[in-house]
């Protein structure tokens, strides 16, 4: 049993940072914990650096796998976390107490996600998932003084636990059908492609259980409330990193462990995908609260990503990775703008954004680019992402899904344009400019430019993700 601790160095750095922040609490006085955030950012950067030229292989007794896919997603998580930490800094005054613990929980959550990305076994996957989940439960309910935050936390916890129950119940059946919990062993067991009843049960329930993390139908119900109620940085974290973590395990489970019985689950995933697309996008239309809107839109996005999963191909895998990157950047840019706006105006209602383009062109353009990227307008990153997904779907002949996807893309344009309408077409209620401090300005610019760059010159990223997808598929077969 090789330990090979070197491979897990990034996680250790992140955990170490989390502990440092925790321990620092003993020495800290005063209200602000921006230092903790900065330490978290430094730790994340260090972890990201340590991932450069990271060798691949198995570690920690074999249940931990470090491969290109994991590295890619870890980088994504780290990047997201850095931004989330920054958003939290901007948001910090709204956190009443335990600010240091907030940062450290974010870091713990990050480590959980990185573990998820590296899980090679249902047990380690499940445990890592719960690690992330528990961190997020706490974070969602963090503002105990805020009624909505607590409500969000409870809803998240109960639905999450229920979903975990289903997930682990399903896993037990997969275990029952294959006699093992390791992804590779399962893949080997299922290579023949023959299926048993247990596998059917396990497959169905596991897939459904996995939909919680990515907030797709039928376990999507929590997301609007939680996005709305939880602290905004947490919502951003949920929308980007947590969803990405969900997809990295979905890729691992569906496309490697269960790849042999693809025929069994493509239909199932298609169903879920279609339902998510329809539900998320349609229900987003009447929303008034921008965070809630993004929550619903997130359900739709999960639908798109699942479409790529249903395609079950290299292209689909690459599409998921690209989508997650573009989507995370869009989400984070938007959430940063939302936080800054909320700091100034105290409202998340879409109508309160009226005339934002006159009051703060930067915030307006950031939301414009971020949201339209989510909607999939070219030449923004989100478009290329959707394009990839459609490409994957069309390639595998998933025409019905593709058509639903197209129509729902239009619906998503509609509701995101409603925000744009409010910002650009409506007159402002008052004309005081909204101040954006200089670091935030830089961050917003980076997000905007990144979104544009992904749309205009996606080549390097696509080449990279396609390469990873290729490697991943090669390793699984």
């Amino acid at each position, binding site marked *: 049993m090789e330990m090979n601790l070197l491979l897990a160095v990034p996680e250790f750095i992140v955990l170490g940072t989390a502990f440092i922040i925790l321990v620092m609490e003993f020495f800290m006085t005063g209200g602000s914990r921006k230092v903790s955030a900065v330490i978290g950012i430094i730790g994340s950067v260090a972890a990201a650096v340590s991932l450069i030229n990271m060798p691949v292989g198995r570690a920690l*007794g*074999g*249940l931990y796998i470090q491969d290109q896919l994991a590295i890619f997603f870890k980088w994504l998580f780290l990047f997201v976390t850095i931004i989330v930490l920054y958003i939290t800094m901007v948001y910090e005054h709204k956190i009443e107490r335990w600010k240091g613990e907030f940062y450290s929980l974010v870091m713990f959550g990050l480590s959980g996600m990185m573990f998820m990305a590296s899980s090679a076994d249902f047990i380690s996957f499940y445990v890592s998932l719960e690690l992330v989940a528990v961190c997020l439960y706490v974070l969602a*309910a963090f503002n105990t003084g805020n009624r909505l935050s607590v409500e969000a936390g409870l809803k998240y916890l109960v639905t999450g636990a229920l979903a975990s129950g289903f997930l682990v119940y399903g896993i037990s059946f997969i275990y029952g059908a294959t*006699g093992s919990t390791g992804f590779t062993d399962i893949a080997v*067991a299922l290579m023949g492609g023959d299926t048993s009843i247990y596998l059917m*049960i396990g497959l169905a329930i596991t897939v459904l259980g996995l939909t919680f993390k990515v907030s797709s139908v039928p376990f999507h119900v929590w997301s609007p409330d939680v996005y709305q109620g939880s602290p905004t940085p947490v919502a951003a974290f949920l929308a980007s990193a947590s969803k990405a973590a969900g997809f990295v395990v979905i890729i691992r489970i569906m496309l490697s462990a269960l790849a042999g019985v693809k025929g069994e689950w493509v239909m199932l995933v298609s169903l879920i995908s279609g339902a998510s697309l329809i539900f998320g996008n349609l229900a987003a239309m009447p929303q008034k609260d921008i965070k809630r809107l993004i929550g619903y839109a997130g359900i739709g996005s999960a639908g798109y990503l699942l479409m790529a999963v249903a395609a079950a191909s290299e292209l689909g895998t690459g599409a998921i990775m690209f989508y997650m990157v573009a989507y995370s950047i869009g989400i984070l840019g938007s959430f940063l703008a939302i936080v800054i706006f909320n700091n100034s105006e105290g409202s998340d209602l879409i109508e309160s954004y009226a005339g934002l383009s006159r009051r703060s062109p930067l915030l307006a353009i950031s939301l414009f680019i971020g949201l339209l990227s989510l909607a999939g307008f070219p030449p923004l990153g989100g478009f290329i992402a959707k394009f990839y997904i459609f490409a994957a779907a069309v390639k595998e002949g998933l025409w019905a899904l593709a058509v639903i996807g197209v129509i729902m893309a239009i619906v998503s344009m509609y509701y995101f344009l409603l925000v744009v309408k409010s910002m650009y077409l409506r007159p402002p209620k008052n004309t005081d400019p909204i101040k954006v401090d200089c670091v935030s300005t830089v961050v917003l610019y980076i997000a905007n430019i990144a979104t544009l760059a992904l749309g205009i010159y996606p080549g390097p990223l696509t080449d990279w993700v396609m390469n990873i997808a290729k490697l991943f598929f090669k390793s699984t077969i």
Partner: protein
Amino acid sequence: MEQIFFYIFAAVAIISALCVVTLRNPVHSAFSLIICLVQVAAIFILLRSPFLAVVQVFIYVGAVMVLFLFAVMVLDMGKETIREHMHSQTIPAVGIVVLLLALIGWLISRGGITAPLGPFDEAALAKNTEVIGKTLFTEYIFPFEVVSLLLLIALIGAVVLVMKERPKSRLQGPQA
């Protein structure tokens, strides 16, 4: 013989589980849950996993249930404060659950073990505890560490969520 025990344990477990769900008083529910969990521990023994049974009793009955009872007491819910203890969606909920039960039950009844069997037959299971102990620290070191983190976070989380004020650190000066 084993069958009789199974049925007894199963029956008690199910009845007590039903009690958990139906009894009005949370304290009663909590006690029913304890009974149920003990039955599960018994089932573990039938499955030749005494280690699991022990863990079950220690962690669940010993820790978790105490936590529950503690919470019930803290929140002063000795008697049910909510008049209608059942949610208004009873009929659809029961219907859906029964349907799901029937569906999965039907599927289970048609299934059987098809996977290749592992090395741990009855005889090997006698040394079950020892083997588990070893694998937990070798093969399963990764999840094991993660779980420990999980417990740590649960601790921090509980503190963060429940404690109103940060205790004055001893390391901090008197005038903060």
